[in-house]
């Protein structure tokens, strides 16, 4: 099982490198087919997602907008392998994500997906560098110190490695959570209102960071946001209402 997974990564990596070398940068990394998700049963049933289909290209920066309760977060969680769809399929690099068993899914999440939440979700008893290196430690691998240093520099939290999350400001905590998401250089970055409770200056900083890593590592970035200024910086905007895609526009 473990071999199977590492094979995926190897093959993917080689595939991506080959394609990049050939100049075929435009490739589908994510494909969503007829995705539906319902919560509850009978009269209390809520359709959070209703037959959603779309594809995302590698390296694309996608913003998802829509009113509260429209199904944005549900969609993001399903893309990230956190929540299972009621029906429909998610393909990542051509592999059916939900055909894997739970353990495989957990490893998929850890290696292929970086998740960033509005409320950081850092582990309070771990210090900054431990929080950032958590995905590597969970894999039982050795921490690449150079990578950690690089991240700390990019995130501008150098010198705070030994601080605990509650000793940091909101913006710094969010930077740490981005570091954690970036540690494994995932192919897909998912951010659920990453700037929801930050001031405008910090918000822009965080978005710049995400955009930079999107460009630098040719990562695919999907952001849920209520901030039109952030949404307008994306390559493409998808609007969701009542669990359906109402608009899908390429901005640039």
């Amino acid at each position, binding site marked *: 099982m473990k071999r199977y997974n590492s094979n995926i990564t190897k093959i993917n990596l080689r595939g991506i490198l080959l394609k990049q070398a050939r100049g075929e940068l435009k490739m589908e990394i994510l494909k969503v087919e007829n995705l539906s998700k319902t919560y509850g049963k009978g009269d209390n049933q809520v359709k959070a997602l209703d037959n959603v289909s779309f594809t995302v290209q590698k390296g694309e920066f996608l913003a998802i*907008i*829509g009113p509260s309760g429209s199904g944005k977060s549900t969609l993001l969680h399903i893309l990230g392998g956190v929540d299972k769809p009621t029906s429909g399929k998610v393909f990542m690099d051509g592999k059916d994500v939900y055909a894997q068993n739970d353990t495989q899914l957990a490893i998929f999440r850890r290696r292929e997906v970086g998740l960033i939440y509005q409320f950081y979700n850092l582990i309070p008893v771990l210090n900054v560098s431990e929080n950032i290196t958590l995905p590597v430690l969970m894999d039982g691998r050795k921490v690449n110190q150079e990578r950690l240093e690089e991240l700390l520099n990019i995130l501008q939290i150098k010198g705070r490695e030994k601080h605990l999350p509650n000793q940091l400001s909101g913006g710094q905590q969010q930077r740490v959570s981005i570091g954690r998401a970036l540690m494994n250089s995932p192919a897909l970055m998912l951010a659920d209102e990453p700037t929801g409770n930050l001031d405008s200056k910090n918000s822009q900083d965080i978005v710049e960071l995400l955009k930079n890593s999107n460009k630098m590592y040719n990562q695919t970035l999907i952001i849920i946001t209520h901030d*039109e200024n952030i*949404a*307008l910086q994306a390559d493409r*905007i998808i609007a969701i*209402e009542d669990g359906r895609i*109402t*608009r899908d526009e390429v*901005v640039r």
Partner: protein
Amino acid sequence: MGDCMKFFRNPEMKKIIFLYILITFTAFGIGFWIDLRCAIFAVTISIIFSTVHLMADFFRYKKLSDLSYQINEILHGQDKYDLSSYAEGELAILQSQIFKMTIQLRQQASILKKDKGYLTDSIADISHQIKTPLTSINIIASFLAEPDITGERRMQLTSELMRMLSHVDWLITTLLKMSKFDADTVKFQNEVVNIDELIKEASISIAIPMDLRDQKFIAKIQQGVTFIGDFAWSGEAIANILKNCMEHTPSGGQIVVLAEENAIYSEIVIIDNGNGIAKEDLSHIFERFYKGENSSNQSVGIGLSLAKMIITRQNGTIKVENNQTVGAKFIIRFYKGIV
């Protein structure tokens, strides 16, 4: 002592005391049948229990009577509430509920009072606005009624009369439109509105007065910029804003209209090079009947207010700011969905 007397006046207390006495006597009787000492013990216990219970009741009743005293105070216009008793228990909950209710009632009363004042002010405002041109119309009519009047003079007076009448007409039409909005009886079309056409339509009404003031109207709008909304009503809103800009721009000035569209909203920007908006007016400019520092005496304070109502109804926003150098800048956005 008074409290004590009041306490014993409660009918349920009378019943309970009677019951206690009955129980004490029964206990004494049964006890005496066993032994004298037992009788004394039973009576003592009965008396102790009765006293403890009566004491507890007494304090509860005292709290109730305090509460009723406070409510009485509030009823008679005392507006200081004693919110100090944050204790557990049914009584404390009752007390806090009563205070909450009192505050709510007071708030409602003050809102009603404010509404009434607003209504009175509005009526006074409207009456005043109609009265002023009516007085002029009266005077002009009396001039016109004079028998020996030259043709030239008549022409002049008639044109003045027409101007006054059109002003009153505009005033009343706008007020009627606003009241329609208030009553929520306006139906909006959901059609694709071409902003280029919209601006052309809206600028017709100000074309002549702008020409008279030697002002320039510049529209830099890309083809194909649209939004979903109601053409006629949006035209009304834009026309009102343009009218405002025109009135606050000196002769020889200019009004520039820009429009663009992105994935989230369609934006119309209207910029004039007039004297701008006073800082203290900026946050009130869209309020009904609000007249700014340097508004003309023709101004009523309903044009911009109506414009805002129309735009808000179409999932849009309007804001105003002062341009960096001169003039005001109105930014109107029609959103394509909820962000």
